[in-house]
């Protein structure tokens, strides 16, 4: 009896583990379904969770949902940058440029306040057009930088990231310059008009876009192209000598990464109904990169969560800290005088430094990247200089 009683919890645990294994196997087999189901659960749970005390005291549910829709933009951006940096290993510091191109594409096609043109192209087809235009510019940026790697590529992309907003700023006859393009038309769907007062439709649309993009990203990762990206990241010459066309492979990484940013740009323009050059500064590029690194480069769900966490900290938690420590809140003598939002980048910087020291593979590392960073000491395969000399034969005269 005692033996059976002792065995019972064990079998229960075994049963639980077996069930978990079965669930994860099912999830791996039906990944697209898993993503859709996962996002439906998350998208339903989050707004409901915000009705509960610790969150509901910060701000009301509507503001939370609005914040989540904005966070979704950054999740999209992080998913796109992850393809360029995480999969193909091309360090892109000017990623916000494609975001800007997507946003301006929609604003130019759907705003009544432009001095030279007045169009109203519907939102949904413009999502695809914005993605296509951004992809084209991705290729145009990628083309001259194909021979560059690492630091050099980073500097060129940095320059591109500065050029694009500067062009939008200075082409004021076309883009209204510093004032930006206002009054951008909001989306409508089957007669339903999206409004500024109700963020829920934006939120739902955003979740749908993210789910689709995520499915695409996963499919790409496990495809012939995904392997080619990884091969180029690992060793470009060896990849070329295995038959990978490194030129088209890298251009496709730039193009597909940029198209995701284009989607995010179109969405932002339609949601804020205003596009101005200062929305796309270097700080944005840097923030997206920080999200990718924090979340775990190469891991699709990881970068999405990283983006969500960073955006929530930046736009919700930091803002709430002021009233929290302020005179109406705890009234802490020293902390109540600090404007926490101003220290946003200090906190980013600190988070990144700590991250690199303690968990260089990110919060949610891809299994591959984890092995990459933690087995370096164990390996003994020789290096750039060739194999271990003690193991080479002596015939070499």
């Amino acid at each position, binding site marked *: 009896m005692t033996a059976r009683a002792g065995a019972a919890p064990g079998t229960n645990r075994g049963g639980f583990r077996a069930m978990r294994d079965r669930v994860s196997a099912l999830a791996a087999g039906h990944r697209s379904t898993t993503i859709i189901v996962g996002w439906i659960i998350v998208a339903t749970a989050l707004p409901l969770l915000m009705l509960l005390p610790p969150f509901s005291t910060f701000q009301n549910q509507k503001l939370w949902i609005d914040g989540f829709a904005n966070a979704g933009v950054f999740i999209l951006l992080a998913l796109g940058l992850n393809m360029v940096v995480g999969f193909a290993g091309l360090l892109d510091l000017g990623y916000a440029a494609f975001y800007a191109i997507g946003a301006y594409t929609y604003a130019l096609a759907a705003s009544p306040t432009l001095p030279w043109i007045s169009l109203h192209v519907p939102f949904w087809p413009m999502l695809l057009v914005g993605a296509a235009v951004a992809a084209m510019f991705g290729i145009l940026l990628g083309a001259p930088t194909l021979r560059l790697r690492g630091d050099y590529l980073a500097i060129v992309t940095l320059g591109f990231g500065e050029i694009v907003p500067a062009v939008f700023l200075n082409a004021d006859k076309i883009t209204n310059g510093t004032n930006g393009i206002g009054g951008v038309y909001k989306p409508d769907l089957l007669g339903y008009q999206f409004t500024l007062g109700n963020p829920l439709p934006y939120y739902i649309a955003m979740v749908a876009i993210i789910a689709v993009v995520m499915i695409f990203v996963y499919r*790409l990762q496990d*495809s012939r192209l*995904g*392997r*080619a990206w990884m091969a180029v990241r690992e060793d470009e010459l060896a990849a070329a000598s295995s*038959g990978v066309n490194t*030129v088209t492979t890298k*251009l496709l990484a730039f193009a597909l990464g940029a198209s995701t940013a284009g989607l995010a740009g179109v969405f932002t323009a339609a949601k804020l109904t205003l596009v101005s050059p200062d929305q796309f500064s270097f700080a944005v590029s840097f923030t997206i990169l920080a999200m990718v690194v924090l979340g775990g480069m190469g891991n699709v769900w990881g970068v999405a969560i990283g983006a969500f966490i960073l955006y929530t900290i930046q736009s919700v938690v930091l803002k709430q800290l002021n009233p929290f420590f302020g005179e109406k809140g705890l009234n802490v003598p020293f902390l109540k005088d600090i404007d926490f939002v101003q220290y946003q980048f200090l906190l980013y910087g600190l988070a990144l430094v700590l991250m690199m020291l303690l968990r260089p593979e990110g919060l949610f590392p891809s299994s591959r990247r984890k092995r*990459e960073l933690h087995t370096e000491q164990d390996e003994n395969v020789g290096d750039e200089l060739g194999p271990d000399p003690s193991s*080479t034969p002596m015939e070499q005269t």
Partner: protein
Amino acid sequence: MSATVVEPGAGVVLQANKVTKAFGGLVAVKEVDLVIPPTSIVSLIGPNGAGKTTFFNVVAGILDPTSGDVTFRGHRVIARPVRAWFEPVVWVLPSVIVGVIAAIVYLATANADATAVVVLGAIGLLIVMFLAAIVRPGWYLRLLTAAGVFRSSRPNDMVKAGMGRTFQNIRLFANMTAQENVQVGMHTKMRANAADALLSTPRARAEERASVTKARDYLALVGLKGRAGELAKNLPYGDQRKLELARALASQPALLLLDEPTAGMNPRETAEMTQLIDRLRRDLGISILLIEHDMKVVMGISDRIYVLDHGELISQGSPQEVRSDPRVIEAYLGKPPT
């Protein structure tokens, strides 16, 4: 068998014709002629620094030769670029023509809008030509050929044409599994493109499944059965060499370039590798160009040996002929004392 040869170069897998490669003043490879008949093992030997690997890199499309050319399976694929200056002209010429049309339109009609459209067309053409110059589709290459421009094949073009290679210092995709490494090797044999991947078409999925099975077959062929899931960098040294060979085989080459395939291996592994190379030729009909320092291996399996010293071909022939050539002995051991 060779009695019915019609075209010149047929019956020869690869023919190098006076290949020279100079780095500044240093001539690394000097007028090397080399012929690889079908299903044969040809070895390239010589002291360190003789230019063997440089010759490999020229043949594989990594370096452009200073002069001379290489014919591979009947096509002249590698040579010093000819009229390369004309290529940029090809890029801008269409847009210049359209630009001239724009000027004519403006002068004739003074219609600013029409002119703007034509100018935009010219810019679009320029972008298309630049992209074509990078991606190099078939029509672009034909255009260049018609204009008399010649550029050597790129390494990936050579793989597509049927040449596989391994490296002297192993260059695997260290953080990918053995199976993925081999699957990358199959890249040219797979058809699924980005759109297939996005839509996850049945064709792409079937191809992906087939590639996994095939990759395991190649791993089994080189003796890495059961190690498909291991990261390349975690494999022992000898297995890494085998994996590199499996990756090269996965492109189903007609010619394999092996750069010191037994370097760093113990005698048992060396014997296995030698057997394997011999099998590849015998069973799969692959021709092999081999760089090797282990004379037992070279003398055992080569049909023909070329000896390089200071970039020059100093001897060639069957193993017996080369072994007794006084110049080869001199290159390896120095001049005999007189």
